[in-house]
């Protein structure tokens, strides 16, 4: 139960919205539910639905609609590489291809140690700093910009060692 596990956070989230509009808290609560495992499990869906007086289907449709919520376990870190047109004009497709070759995975796959899932995503508003990607984990998101494959592999090694996000 989120309210038992993170009582302060849940209280603070609910205070952001008018009391009669608590459904608004569904998105921040889903981020909270994702914190430990990187995805939202079924129990959390039902828990959030009860907290907000909506159905678990209404919570599930939010998870389904927005790309940053996940309903399945993947790698501990999701490396989301922007391959949209402005980034691709600056070499993002080639970067992703070489990165996958170095990690020994295809786009959408997770490394054998379960640490990194590589994904191709749409625009992340960093078109002037391509190639770039964000790393999403349960704790949040961080950007890595003006990247090379070498720099990325160093970052991957650091993530494997420390288990924590590292800013360049």
């Amino acid at each position, binding site marked *: 139960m989120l309210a038992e596990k993170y009582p302060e956070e849940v209280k603070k989230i609910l205070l952001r919205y*008018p009391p009669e*509009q608590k459904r608004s808290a569904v998105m921040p609560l889903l981020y909270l539910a994702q914190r430990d495992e990187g995805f939202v499990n079924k129990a959390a869906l039902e828990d959030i639905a009860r907290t907000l007086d909506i159905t678990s289907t209404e919570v599930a449709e939010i998870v389904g609609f927005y790309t940053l919520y996940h309903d399945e376990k993947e790698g501990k870190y999701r490396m989301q590489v922007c391959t949209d047109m402005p980034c691709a004009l600056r070499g993002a497709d080639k970067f992703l291809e070489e990165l996958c070759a170095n990690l020994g995975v295809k786009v959408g796959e997770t490394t054998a140690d379960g640490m990194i899932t590589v994904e191709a995503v*749409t*625009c992340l508003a960093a*078109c002037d700093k391509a190639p770039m990607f964000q790393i999403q984990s349960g704790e949040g998101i961080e950007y890595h910009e003006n990247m090379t494959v070498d720099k990325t592999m160093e970052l991957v090694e650091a993530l494997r060692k420390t288990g924590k996000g590292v800013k360049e």
Partner: protein
Amino acid sequence: MTHLLLRHRDIPDIGKMDVYQKNGGFEAFEKAVTRMKPQEVTDVVKASGLRGRGGAGFPTGVKWSFIPKNIWPHYVVANADESEPGTFKDREIMENNPLQFLEGVAITSYAVGANAAYVYLRGEFWPVATLLDEKIAEMEKAGYLGEKIFGTDFSLRIYTHLGAGAYICGEETALIESIEGKRGQPRIRPPFPAVYGLYGKPTVINNVETLTNVPLIVERGADCYKSLGTADSAGVKIFSLSGRVNQPGNYELPFGTTFRELIYHYGGGVMDDRPVKAIMPAGASSSFIVADDKALDTPMDYASVRTLGADLGSASVIVIDDTVSLEWVISKTIRFFKHESCGKCTPCREGCYWMMHLIERIGNGEKTKENIELLYSVAKQMQNKCLCPLGEFSTMAVVTGIERFPQDFSVKRNNAEVLR
């Protein structure tokens, strides 16, 4: 020129409360709340000619004046969903000059009588939201937010709300739905948010850059602001320059700067000194401009860019050189819109799906006259039939690409020439 919005480029620590205060921070807010009536604030913004910087270019003061005085409460929402491929200006403002942006939110709230404002950030801006939360707490501590601000009866709270990865939430009614805890799908308009917005109440929604202009206008007056820019496009604009240029980035310039100045003087010219072939002036949703000399010497303001058969929109200038095939470019834009279509209206949902299929077929070697004509026809049939601008946007590059660069869609063209 001294920066008015990207002030951190002149004053590195402008994001800190004491530095911001020392440089005139919150004086405009104090002036508004203690010495001006809300209507006077709206009037000065109206007189300044400020137009929405998110893309639509609608006059900001006029938007505020639509808020009815007989339905309460009112809300202000800052649109920080910045998701258009080619646009990356709001993030730079919020990361580096957050207090000027938040002061803009506060002044706007006073002008329209709102006691609560939400900043809706795209989920990827998680660290930016954390920073804004800190700045909001500092403002509360300093007495700029909370109850009885500057000893008056005006009270205000600002909250951040993180989206979770959906371009469509930049559309204002979809954004409202998202804050309400629903799927981010646009509402049928009218009613417009000014009357029926967040929680069904009158709501003003403005882009981050628009709001960051507001303290300047209140502080310096409408005439001073209007003296910058051109007759129909007052003030300064942040141009996000990307694509095949040597120095991509944000450039804060007066409206009326030419494409040539932006690309060659500020952007350091084109990679490998290739000629510019096409320009997308408003990100992935733009029409293509044929980059001849006339186009390059066209001033970047709302009216002039329209003479080139395109819109300036959010001024996200993507430069495409002659090594790139527009067939490849539209395969990227279609993929984007197909992914981001919310699925609510049929023309957009099915149209994007079919455009995607056709451009894939064409890319895979089935570059027949029939497939290209069919792609053009699907895009044309979507126009003016979609519920919100997303569907329309998805067709702009397709239609203008085929019309203005027919050589790139010639059936004889070898696919190996296409850039990878």
